[in-house]
């Protein structure tokens, strides 16, 4: 396995490192987790985040037989979705 950064030029790798980060929980600021573990709140680089784990990992979701949509397929679907939004906006002008 190799990293994407290692395949890119140093400048590209630096850009990527700046764009994509992977902080640990300890590296987040003001992190608070509710006693039940469902809600999480923290700050990261001046931005405040509130996480509801029931939305990210709904109860019982892991036992569902959901395959999911392949990345390329979903990105194409999203492109079409944006085109529709733009068309709607254009029509309303």
């Amino acid at each position, binding site marked *: 396995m190799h990293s*994407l950064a290692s395949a890119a030029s140093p400048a590209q790798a630096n850009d990527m490192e700046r764009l994509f980060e992977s902080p640990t*929980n300890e590296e987040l600021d003001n992190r608070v987790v509710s006693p039940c573990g469902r809600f999480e709140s923290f700050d990261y680089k001046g931005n*405040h985040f*509130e996480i509801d784990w029931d939305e990210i*990992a709904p109860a019982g979701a892991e036992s569902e037989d*959901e395959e999911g*949509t*392949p990345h390329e397929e*979903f990105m194409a679907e999203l492109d079409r979705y944006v085109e529709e939004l*733009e068309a709607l906006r254009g029509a309303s002008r």
Partner: protein
Amino acid sequence: MIASRSKSPRLPRVIWRRAARRSMRALTDFLDANVHGDSKARRKEIEAAVESLRHSPLRCPAVATKEGKTFRRLVVRDRYFVYYVYTPPRGMTSAGTISIRAVRHAATQNPFLAVRESLAADQPHAVLSTHDTTPAIA
């Protein structure tokens, strides 16, 4: 005759679960409704971030375990968080799977702050929400 083997590394496939698709559409709506900044560029960055995971799916530390699954988190431009679960390869037929579970943005502050050209006002024109309430387009 021995079959030739591809020299390119087999990369894990990426799939988007239902909740992740919903959250990405909601984020797309928000970005699209905001008149500041380049919404397409932001979305492409998130797309590139997800694709980068294929080359290093374990680069992000585990941040939570739910129902036996280890959740990891990738941060894009300080303000978009991608939550995913990586399942390593099983046997010779699989290269592993990266299952995207959600894309979240900052609950406060302007998501375009510091990533856009100089503008007079910093307030976004759309309402920020961490909830996925946007119905999908059929």
